[in-house]
C-alpha cells in the first residue's frame, strides 16, 4: 500500500490575516488572536492524498509543525480522511525559517520510513516562500516536482505529472519516492463531513519534540536558522488622492474623462 505524508501548516485565517500589521512606532508585530486554519494549498495536498487512497488504497500521515494549538488543524485533517497525525511542537522549534522548518519536518518523515510520496502545498498563505517542499526533498534525498497542476499517471513506481511553467506546463516522469508541491488546480478539496468527524475520534495524534527527533537545540528554531529578520520597517506608499464625487453615473462619467485626458481612450 502506498504510504503518503502530507505536510500541513496552521496559518492565520487568510481572510483576516491582513489585519496583522507592523506597528509604525514600535516596529514590531502586534499579538493577534486571528483563528488558525489549514493553509489553503495544503488542503489541495491532503485532497490529492485522499483521492489516491480512495482509488487504490493508501496510508496517509499528516505532519504539521507549529504551536500546540495547531493540533486542531491536524485533527481536522484526520476528519477529512488522513489516517494518522503528527504534530511537531516544541518551544525549541519556534522562529524557524524555511530551511530549518524543512530540516525538522524531514527528520520526522525519516522516522515514518518507508514513504512513497510526500505532498505539500506550493506555499503557505502567511510565509509565501515556496521553499519548504523542495528543501524537504533535499533533506530526504528524494526528487521533487514543484507547482504540480495535475497528477496525470499515478500507477506503479514512476508517475507522470504536469507542473506549471511560464505560459504553459511541463509534463515530467518521476520515480518514487518523491515530493510534490501542488497548486490549487490539482483538485477541489472536500469539506468536512459529520461521519468524518466521528471517525477521527478514534485516530491518533502523536506529538513529537526536539528529543523525539534526535535533534539538538542549535539545529532547530531561530538558533538553527540560516536567515534572520534583522529589521521591520513601517512603509507607506502615499499619493495625494482626489475622491470622485456625485452619483454612480457621475463618477463613471468623470472616470471616462480622466481616461480620455490621459490619452488611453
Amino acid at each position: 500500500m502506498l504510504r503518503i505524508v502530507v505536510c500541513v501548516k496552521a496559518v492565520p485565517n487568510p481572510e483576516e490575516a491582513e489585519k496583522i500589521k507592523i506597528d509604525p512606532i514600535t516596529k514590531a508585530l502586534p499579538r493577534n488572536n486571528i483563528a488558525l486554519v489549514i493553509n489553503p494549498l495544503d488542503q489541495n495536498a491532503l485532497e490529492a492524498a485522499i483521492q489516491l487512497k480512495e482509488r487504490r488504497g493508501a496510508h496517509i500521515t499528516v505532519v504539521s509543525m507549529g504551536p500546540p494549538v495547531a493540533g486542531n488543524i491536524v485533527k481536522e485533517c484526520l476528519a477529512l480522511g488522513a489516517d494518522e497525525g503528527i504534530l511537531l511542537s516544541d518551544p525549541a522549534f519556534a522562529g524557524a525559517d524555511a530551511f530549518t522548518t524543512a530540516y525538522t519536518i524531514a527528520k520526522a518523515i525519516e522516522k515514518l520510513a518507508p514513504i512513497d510520496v510526500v505532498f505539500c502545498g506550493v506555499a503557505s498563505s502567511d510565509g509565501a516562500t515556496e521553499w519548504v517542499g523542495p528543501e524537504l526533498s533535499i533533506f530526504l534525498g528524494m526528487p521533487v516536482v514543484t507547482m504540480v497542476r495535475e497528477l496525470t499517471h499515478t500507477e506503479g513506481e514512476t508517475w507522470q505529472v504536469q507542473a506549471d511553467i511560464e505560459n504553459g506546463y511541463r509534463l515530467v516522469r518521476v520515480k518514487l519516492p518523491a515530493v510534490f508541491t501542488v497548486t490549487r488546480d490539482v483538485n477541489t478539496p472536500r469539506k468536512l463531513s459529520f461521519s468524518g468527524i466521528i471517525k477521527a475520534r478514534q485516530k491518533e495524534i502523536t506529538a513529537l519534540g526536539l528529543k523525539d527527533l534526535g535533534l539538538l537545540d542549535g539545529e532547530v528554531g531561530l538558533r538553527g536558522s540560516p536567515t534572520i529578520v534583522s529589521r521591520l520597517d513601517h512603509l507607506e506608499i502615499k499619493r495625494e488622492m482626489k475622491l470622485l464625487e456625485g452619483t454612480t453615473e457621475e463618477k463613471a462619467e468623470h472616470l471616462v474623462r480622466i481616461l480620455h485626458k490621459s490619452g488611453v481612450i
Partner: protein
Amino acid sequence: MMAAEKNGAVWVIAELGGDQIQPVSLQLLGKGRGLADQLQVPLDCILLGNETEGFARTLIKAGADRVYIGNDPQLSNYQPDLYLDIIQKLAHEHEPAIMLLGSTFMGRELAPLLAASLRTGLSAHCIDLMINEDMILEQIIPAYGGLITIICPERRPQMATVADGVFSLPAFSEQRKGEVVLVEVPQGISQFVELVEVVQIPKEGVALESARVVVAGGAGACDQEGWAEITKLAEVLNAGLGSTRPAVDEGWTALETMIGQSGKMVNPEIYIGVGLSGELQHMVGIAGAKVMIGINNDRKAPIFKQVDYGIVEDCREFIPVLLKKLEEFGVE
C-alpha cells in the same frame, strides 16, 4: 556548510526563456554589478542550456566579469538533477558570497534545491537588495504592511530570488571585457525527474508587462461573475488584466496575472485597482504607474491613500455603469 568567505564573488544564475536570456537575469546582472563593486569582488554568471555560447557576450556586456557556460543538448530544458549537480559543484569550488536567481518557475524550484544542498538560507521574491556596513546582504521583502529585512549572517552563499521587473535592465557596454568558462557537463547522471514534454498554452489578452493600461481586480469581485465584469473592463480598455493573491486563491484568474512582490512588477500609464484593499505586497508591484485609480466600497481601505483618484463604490455595481459610459463615449 561553507565558511563565510570574505572575497567570494556575486553570482547570478541566468536562464533562457525561449531563444533569449530572461529579462530578469539581465536585471539581476545590473543589480549584481553594483553589489559586486561595493564588495570589491567579481560578478559571475552561470548559464546552462544548449547552444548557449552566443549568449556569453550579452551577459558580459550586461556586467558579468566571468560567465560559466554549460552547453549541452541535455541542458536544453531545465533538468533539476543536472542543473543542481552542476551549479552545486561550481559553488563548492568557488564559494560565492551571494547567489541570485529570478523568481521564474525554474528559479522558484532550483533556488531552494541549491540552498538546502549548500546548507544556506534563501529569501523569497525580494524587492530590494543592499550591502550593509558589515558587508552583509540585506534582503528586503514587503510583509505585514511594511518591509522586512532578512539577512543570512553566517552561512554562504547569501541567496535570494527576485521577480521580473523589480530592477531595471542594465546599460549594456560594448567595451566590457569578461572571461568565458565552459563548464563540464556530467554524462549519464541518473535523472529522477525526466522531462517528457513542454506544452505552451497561448496567452489570451494583452501582456501585462507591456500594457499601457492595467486593470487589476481583487477579493471585492466577490465571485466568478464579478470577476468576469473586471475582465470585460480590461478587454474594453485594451488593458492588461492584473490581480491580487486572494483573486488567484479563489481560482478566478491564473497566477500569471498576479501583480506584486511574488508576481509581476509593472509600470503602466494608467492603473485601475478594482475591489482590492491596497495591500503592500500588491502595491509594490504597481507603485510606478503614472496615474492610479482605486475603486472600493470601503472608504477606509488603504488603497485610497495610495492612488491619485478614488471612487467609493461597490465594483459589481460600478463596473457595469462604467462599461455603459465607455460605450457611450465610443469605446467598445
